[in-house]
């Protein structure tokens, strides 16, 4: 630094010369631009912002369109939701029982999240830390189950739940959602656990911890990003999933949000305001979950997803 200043200082117009010194090629990187950052940042800005802006238009206009219909009075054709009205929300929440649907969807989502994460943790730990005879068979079953279409299992599943007398109980949907979430969750979680060195656990055993306590104290905290990814997957999928709820829950006070939305789509396509308001209600929880997890989603994936 001093050497550089001294060098510049020898020229007549010392301070301004520093400021106006010809910029190096990677000038956009301020401060100490290491070479590797420069290699990345050489892309002209417009080549990033222009395509990004176009894609954002494609992504956001549909969301805006829904908000517009939900917030402006019926019959209005304004492109801004003004005057603001919440009549559609009131109508959908009360008359169309979206309040009830919301509660049911929440129960299904949270129960699926808890069950999937808990069961997948146990199974993932077994796959990551033990050698046992049916391990490969179990892995194969997990992978194969990815090819089984839930939609095509509807009829046999319906018969099973009928025999268990669980039709029209949220339990049937929770079980079905959990079962179809499990295989991928177990594969992901066992990948995450494999990334935690066994030596950490062994150190805790030496200190007198049981296997379970060592797991809770040492492994679990390190799994946080992965668990958040898996748990939010389970929640979002069960919140969104439509067919199981449509088939297994026929009583109206047991239905979930997607089924309610489908009723609005089918029954009165005339009442677009109500439809849009229902859509906003369906979107809010997943958007909130997504906003929280989106950073973890990427790190969680790179930590264990592809390794299996």
């Amino acid at each position: 630094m001093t050497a550089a200043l001294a060098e510049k200082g020898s020229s007549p117009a010392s301070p301004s010369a520093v400021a106006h010194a010809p910029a190096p090629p990677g000038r956009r990187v301020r401060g100490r631009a290491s070479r590797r950052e420069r290699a990345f940042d050489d892309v002209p800005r417009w080549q990033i912002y222009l395509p990004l802006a176009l894609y954002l238009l494609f992504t956001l206009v549909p969301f805006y369109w829904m908000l517009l219909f939900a917030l402006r009075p019926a019959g209005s054709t304004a492109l801004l939701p003004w005057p603001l009205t919440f009549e559609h929300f009131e109508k959908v929440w009360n008359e169309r029982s979206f309040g009830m649907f919301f509660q049911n969807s929440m129960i299904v989502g949270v129960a699926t999240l808890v069950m999937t994460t808990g069961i997948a943790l146990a199974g993932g730990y077994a796959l990551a830390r033990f050698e046992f005879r049916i391990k490969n068979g179990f892995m194969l079953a997990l992978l194969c189950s990815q090819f089984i279409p839930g939609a095509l299992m509807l009829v046999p599943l319906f018969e099973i739940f009928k025999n268990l007398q669980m039709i029209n109980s949220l339990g049937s949907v929770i079980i079905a959602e959990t079962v179809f979430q499990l295989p991928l969750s177990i594969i992901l979680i066992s990948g995450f656990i494999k990334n935690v060195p066994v030596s950490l656990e062994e150190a805790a055993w030496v200190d007198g911890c049981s296997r379970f306590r060592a797991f809770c104290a040492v492994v679990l905290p390190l799994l946080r990003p992965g668990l958040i990814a898996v748990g939010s997957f389970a929640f979002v999928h069960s919140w969104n999933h439509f067919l199981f709820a449509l088939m297994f829950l026929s009583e109206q006070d047991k239905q979930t949000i997607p089924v309610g939305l489908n009723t609005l789509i089918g029954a009165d396509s005339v009442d677009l305001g109500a439809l849009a308001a229902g859509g906003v209600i369906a979107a809010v929880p997943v958007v909130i979950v997504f906003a929280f997890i989106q950073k973890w989603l990427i790190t969680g994936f790179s930590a264990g997803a592809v390794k299996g």
Partner: protein
Amino acid sequence: MASAVARVPRAPGRRAGAPPRRLPYLLIAPAGLLMLGFIAYPVISVFYYSLQDYNVTKPWRNGFAGFDNFIRIFTDDPQFWTTLGFSARWVVVQVSLQLALGLVLALLVNQTFVGRGIARAMVFSPWAVSGVLTTTIWMLLYNPSTGVSRYLADAGIGSYGTSVLSDTGTVFWAAVVAELWRGVPFFAILILADLQSIPKELYEAASVDGAGRARQFFHITLPHLRDAIVLATLLRGVWEFNNVDLLYTLTGGGPAGVTTTLPLYVANTGIEGHDFGYASALTTVAFVILLFCSILYLRLSKFGGDSK
């Protein structure tokens, strides 16, 4: 930390009395039992019923049918071939477009620029949106009297009263765009996660050697992403084949059946047509086709890598 302590040869489970031999089985038991009951059993019952005549509305004909159902599929069911063809077209178009756009998007948001965090969150947000909600949103956009086409017509683009969903010529691409809207983020998230695991030194070395951005992309980025791309396209292909939410609610398979996929046809046959035996045979065929295509795809993509 405990490097001075010698390796612990035994896990504490053995000391505590619970033989670790049994522990892994206990850990996978909940997942295993659930999957046996609610995936394996339904699958077996589908295979079983595929060899039966089983129709609730014609109980006098129920009974063992041998391969009659399968013979009927391949020799006497034009709808099987049209729906299979549509499914294939749907999967190929969706997966290739989603991959191309997702790759571009991931490369874009992997750059360093102002507002990257918020841009990522917005670009990825449709990932969390359900099929039914996608339908809701795009119904509002496609609506001929209040949708986007009306405003475009006001501005002199296109004509009034265009209903893209009821025209057999446009409905395919209308559905494709809606599904793309929520499908691209899946690829973008997975690819971005993998992009971040590429060592930056590789780019550094390449740029020192004078490789331009295009060459860096083809010689570093793409080879590194190959496994992730193969896995993502496979998972997505299976998912797009099986998933019925969007098409069921957006087009209902119409107009005139031109957007009926094979799973939608199966669901109609089994649930509305009550012909469960035949629907089971169709399911079996779909499952075999899917498995065959997946194995073929994995072989081919691996073969491409070896020949390099």
